[in-house]
């Protein structure tokens, strides 16, 4: 914060009055003990109606997930973030399935990341029985049995508050069901004590407790305060319901966040307003790793509303999973528009590392391609690939490219932060509040126990770490302006700088085919930036399609673009390579791409082999595979899977894409048929359908339109005039989705389905126009034919 303004005009009126702060805290009564803080009355009037964040009402909670008011309203605390995937509803369903409360009186609310820093998880949540993936009542892997943090998952109150890896159901279901069951048992115990009858004579439904043998009834609301003081004598004995006993889960439930999202009442981070709040606009060095050399605050200091300007150093990469963003300048003003327009006119000199400024896409792509001819790091080597291919009847080789891609969520990055000498308050939509809590502590020097994160809805996620340094930047500014709430908001252009990208990648696949067209050897080489989750995850062709000899090697490049988990992660690119190549092989072999895949799966001994065949067969039937199509229309099939190579959770799907291309070259995705493994059961099938519909268009955009290029070390496409996003006119007119049951729990649904739109469109282009395109996006090519 070396360049803080010499002329900050803080006159008191803008600053939150500390006495008001303390008075409000005290007024919250017992809640203050937990460190809860109420915004002042005016702030509440402006923002609290419908605020989704943690709040104490004074009613004692039954457990950390559940508060029941005397009128039977049930507040369910949600430890993941709603970003469109339906977790606000599905997490509540998991709790309420067991609680057996009246679903119409359920109100979700975000869990407190502050309590998570202060309290440990209850012992009973550690108790995961059963056999994981294959036990109908099991919770997947028993990640939490020990108090040892597993995969970065702590043993704090809410365990994982992250929203990532499609894992909210996979990792959370068991203990969320337990949370509901534990509360239900205690409500029954409380009623039993009241009536002096054995709890075994009581039953509960829709928040009403009834006594068998008498006509006595009571409600959850009436006994909740007693239940709060009634510990369960043996929580380890509580069992959760398997899918066969579910009455709420597994059935389509309308999403509980939807009503507020059609009236404009839903509260996102950008909507937070505080008394005395100032706005910050930010401009970061457009070349990652660059910083601010100087800026001339005098040029803008007299503009209306302008308060101060700050140099924000490059955020500590250790707070951002190792990613290096840029140094930046922030201008603070009374309104955001004042701050933004002043910043537009602020002279800034950048300090840009020369080697980075020399980078552009063509050169970087060339580096990756030439890496493919070097021996890379061998990940899998089975049999003798080289001799198998050398002795093959024919050899097929193809090289594919996938560009840098951002998440480009609709809500630009923002955070509102108030730092005082006692505590930090952050209002933010955040996919990893536990990490933000740590950032707040590191930047302000206050303890994590004194960090309060008020979670808001998030206007799109699409990848946890892509959030970038918005919280860190806001924390730096607010720390320099202690006592004043600072609302940082990025422009769209800034959001393209503050995000991580999926790594640009290339892959070369080479197969030797026997006289009948079956692969005798397959070699796969990929090259990507190491940090992109690209080279190592989700790619092992041999473990899906049978080939007796197989080698997979990967090559990494060290570029300066921060790469991270974008929707679909590495799988999105890898399935494009794999499924495109399978189509090429089937065509080369003169075989039907559906039956070719089916046979090559059938020849494996993979644990999920039969489910993959089921998916292929079902989707072929759904789409009437093989039936005639008009000229200029083609179908392509693909298999998508996660986890099919090992015993355990998996998600399997097969899709058929029907594509038309006019002679002039206008392509339309006409129809998508989807067969999706639902494991023992889905939680909310409605949310799953919505996710699939959205992902189809997401990967349609990847296939047809989207790429970020680098010029002079900068990302070129930084707003929607250059970075194109499809509109309604490109949405497929027909989407058919069918689920099929399997004997394992699903791996997750959040992000990696419908990657096959990419290979499907690619193959349809080939079938219709004869052009085999291997570099995404396809719309950079002339698709006319005939």
């Amino acid at each position, binding site marked *: 914060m070396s360049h803080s303004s010499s002329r900050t005009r803080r006159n008191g009126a803008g600053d939150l009055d500390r006495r008001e702060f303390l008075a409000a805290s005290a007024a919250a009564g017992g809640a203050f003990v937990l460190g809860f803080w109420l915004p002042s009355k005016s702030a509440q009037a402006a923002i609290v109606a419908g605020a989704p964040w943690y709040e104490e009402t004074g009613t004692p909670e039954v457990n950390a997930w559940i508060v029941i008011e005397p009128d039977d309203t049930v507040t369910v605390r949600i430890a993941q973030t709603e970003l*469109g995937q339906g977790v606000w509803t599905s997490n509540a369903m998991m709790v309420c399935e067991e609680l057996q409360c009246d679903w119409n009186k359920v109100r979700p609310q975000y869990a407190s990341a502050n309590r998570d820093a202060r309290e440990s998880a209850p012992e009973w949540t550690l108790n995961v029985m059963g056999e994981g993936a294959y036990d109908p009542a099991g919770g997947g892997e028993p990640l939490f049995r020990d108090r040892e943090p597993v995969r970065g998952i702590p043993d704090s109150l809410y365990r994982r508050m992250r929203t990532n890896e499609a894992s909210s159901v996979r990792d959370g279901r068991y203990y969320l069901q337990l949370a509901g069951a534990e509360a239900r048992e205690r409500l029954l115990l409380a009623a039993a004590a009241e009536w002096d009858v054995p709890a075994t004579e009581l039953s509960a439904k829709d928040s009403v407790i009834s006594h068998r043998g008498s006509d006595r009834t009571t409600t959850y609301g009436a006994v909740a305060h007693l239940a709060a003081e009634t510990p369960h004598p043996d929580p380890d004995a509580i069992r959760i319901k398997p899918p066969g006993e579910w009455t709420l889960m597994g059935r389509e439930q309308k999403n509980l966040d939807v009503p507020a999202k059609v*009236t*404009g009442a839903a509260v996102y981070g950008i909507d937070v307003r505080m008394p005395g709040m100032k706005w910050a606009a930010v401009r970061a060095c457009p070349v990652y790793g660059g910083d601010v050399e100087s800026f001339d605050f005098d040029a803008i200091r007299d503009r209306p509303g302008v308060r101060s300007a700050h140099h924000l150093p490059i955020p500590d990469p250790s707070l951002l999973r190792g990613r290096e963003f840029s140094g930046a300048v922030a201008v603070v003003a009374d309104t955001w*528009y004042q701050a933004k327009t002043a910043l537009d006119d602020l002279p800034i000199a950048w300090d840009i590392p020369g080697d980075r400024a020399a980078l552009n896409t063509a050169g970087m792509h060339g580096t990756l391609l030439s890496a493919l001819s070097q021996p890379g790091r061998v990940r899998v080597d089975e049999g003798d690939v080289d001799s198998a291919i050398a002795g093959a009847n024919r050899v097929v080789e193809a090289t594919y490219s996938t560009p840098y891609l951002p998440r480009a969520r609709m809500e630009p990055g923002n955070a509102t932060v108030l730092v005082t000498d006692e505590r930090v308050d952050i209002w933010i939509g955040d996919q990893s509040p536990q990490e933000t809590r740590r950032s707040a502590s590191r930047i302000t020097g206050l303890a994590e126990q004194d960090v309060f994160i008020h979670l808001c809805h998030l206007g799109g996620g699409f990848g946890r770490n892509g959030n970038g340094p918005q919280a860190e930047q806001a924390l730096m500014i607010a720390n320099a302006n202690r006592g004043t709430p600072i609302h940082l908001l990025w422009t769209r252009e800034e959001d393209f700088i503050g995000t991580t990208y999926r790594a640009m990648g290339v892959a070369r696949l080479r197969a030797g085919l026997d006289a009948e067209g079956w692969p005798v050897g397959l070699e796969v080489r990929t090259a990507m930036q190491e940090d992109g989750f690209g080279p190592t995850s989700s790619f092992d062709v041999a473990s899906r399609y049978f080939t007796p000899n197989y080698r997979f090697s990967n090559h990494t490049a060290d570029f300066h673009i921060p790469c991270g988990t974008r929707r679909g992660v590495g799988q999105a690119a890898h399935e494009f390579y794999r499924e495109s190549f399978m189509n090429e092989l089937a065509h080369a072999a003169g075989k039907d791409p559906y039956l070719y895949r089916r046979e090559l799966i059938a020849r494996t001994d993979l644990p999920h082999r039969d489910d993959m065949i089921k998916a292929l067969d079902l989707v072929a039937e759904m789409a009437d595979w093989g039936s005639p199509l008009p000229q200029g229309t083609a179908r392509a099939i693909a298999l998508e899977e996660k986890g099919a190579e090992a015993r355990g959770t998996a998600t399997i799907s097969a899709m058929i894409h029907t594509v038309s291309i006019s002679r002039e070259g206008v392509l339309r995705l006409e129809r998508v048929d989807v067969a999706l493994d639902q494991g023992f059961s889905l939680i909310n099938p409605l949310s799953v359908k*919505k996710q699939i519909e959205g992902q189809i268009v997401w990967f349609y955009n990847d296939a047809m339109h989207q790429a970020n290029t680098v010029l002079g070390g900068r990302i070129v496409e930084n*707003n929607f005039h250059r970075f194109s996003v499809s509109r309604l006119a490109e949405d497929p007119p027909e989407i058919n989705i069918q689920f099929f049951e399997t004997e394992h729990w699903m791996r997750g649904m959040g992000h990696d389905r419908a990657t096959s739109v990419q290979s499907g469109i690619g193959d349809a282009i080939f079938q219709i126009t004869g052009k085999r395109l291997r570099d995404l996006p396809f719309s950079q090519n002339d698709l006319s034919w005939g």
Partner: protein
Amino acid sequence: MAFDLEVNGTSFSVDADPQTPLLWVIRDQVGLTGTKFSCGIAQCGACTVHVDGQPIRSCSFPASAAVGRSITTIEGLSADGSHPVQLAWKEFDVPQCGYCQSGMIMSAMALLDKNPDPTDADIDAGITNICRCSTYHRVRKAVHRAAELLKGQGA
């Protein structure tokens, strides 16, 4: 500069540079935050409001140009979600993250004002808002449903 704006039938006195985009005056001075900012360059439609019944992208529309005209935001459709377009949206559970939906609904409303019985092609051509969650499939269905509900209301 101080001027008056009529938003959802109520007059507000605001003080802003007249070139300030209407979006920021609505969000920060009038205090209605249902209208969203996303691109700032009239590309995405998240900021769509009606001025004298016409949909405009308020991020690129100077506030002063709305003086003396009647502005409608998402909050002006109905506070309780009972407007037919909102009912249709709920019936199809359209929103995902929801961030684009105020603008999407205002665009749908404008389309239905002009064309009470739109075909799929009319909807595809008439609504050009971006939804990054790609709720388009349900938007199309919900617009048809809203058209039905609006007709029923008129009858």
